């Protein structure tokens, strides 16, 4: 039985479906990216230099309190 679609129509529909799929996945990825909290780049710290300044200033670091956040 002859098909009601010509070969060109099938190729056209295929391309459209592919394009829609591509756009959909890009949109979804963008949405996910926007939903994630922004991540600042890690600072580039010269720890040796910082510690040198602290020592030079006569500061004596001491372990600080660190609280575990209970359910609020």
């Amino acid at each position: 039985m002859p098909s009601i679609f010509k070969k060109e129509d099938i190729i056209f529909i295929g391309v459209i479906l592919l394009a829609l799929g591509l756009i959909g996945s890009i949109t979804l990825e963008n949405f996910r990216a926007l939903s994630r909290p922004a991540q600042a780049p890690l600072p580039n710290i010269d720890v040796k230099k910082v510690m040198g300044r602290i020592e030079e200033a006569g500061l004596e670091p001491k372990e600080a309190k660190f609280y575990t956040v209970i359910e609020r």
Partner: protein
Amino acid sequence: MCKKECELVEGQRGDCLSRMNIGGKLQTLVYGKPCAVHIDPIEKKPLFHYLPGSGSFSIATAGCNLHCRNCQNWEISQREPEATRNMDLPPQEIVDAAIKYNCRTIAYTYSEPTTFFEYMADTARLAHKKDILNVWVTAGFINPEPLDELCTFIDAATIDLKGMTEEFYRDVCFAELAPVLNTLKTTHKRGMWVEMSNLVVPTLNDKEEDIAKLVDWVYENLGPEVPLHFLRFWPMFQLRNLPPTPVETLTMAREIALSKGIHYVYIGNVPGHEGNNTYCPVDKKLLINRVGYSILEYNIEDGRCKFCGHKIPGRWS
């Protein structure tokens, strides 16, 4: 410690500039290293209902977890501890000095004591052993867990409620309102003596509706007996473009608070204003006449109005 809950990589310090990740552990850089040490009248905190006329041994270290554009102590609060001139003063020496100079209280003040919590806690616990009381002068931006511990060693507090909107806290102070309101409610509920201050900044939080909102919140959540101090703004730090608060604005704020039922409403940084004085809410007689931080007349006996016997809240001896 505070709602900012900074996550730090090795060598990085928190938003307060005084706490740092060293070797994978959170460390304080300012323990035993105050950059400001003074003996102040307790009225300067301001505390008007707490041991009036007494001296308060006052200390601060560098750093703050807020960055108010109007900060009057920005030279210490907005600096790293390496950039200030610091003393070597361990907790026991503070207590000894407070005794030597006849101070009834030690005040943790000027910058934000929450950022030197460990130093404050150790000093305060030693002070209690010598019958010296502890005063916390704060913006109240602290998490509930450390606040819970703090309530065990602090006796009185001046808590600065800087405005009544999240926008004000975000744009002017780089902080949040909700934790401050929680601090006010918790300290009051736990029985700490609390006085409140509000710096009235022209164009930013000086509208009648701003003041009314603040007063309504105080009345509903803390009651009419918590003293409320409206303080005059003076051009400072990043807000030098604004004028000082007009005295009429402060008078308006005081009148709103009194008309809404708050009993003790004061005006600060305007010496000689009648809003410096304490009046009995029942017979309206003058109880404490103040000029600046000095007391000229005192009509409270055994914590009561000398004229009508009405009990005045606070700690008077």
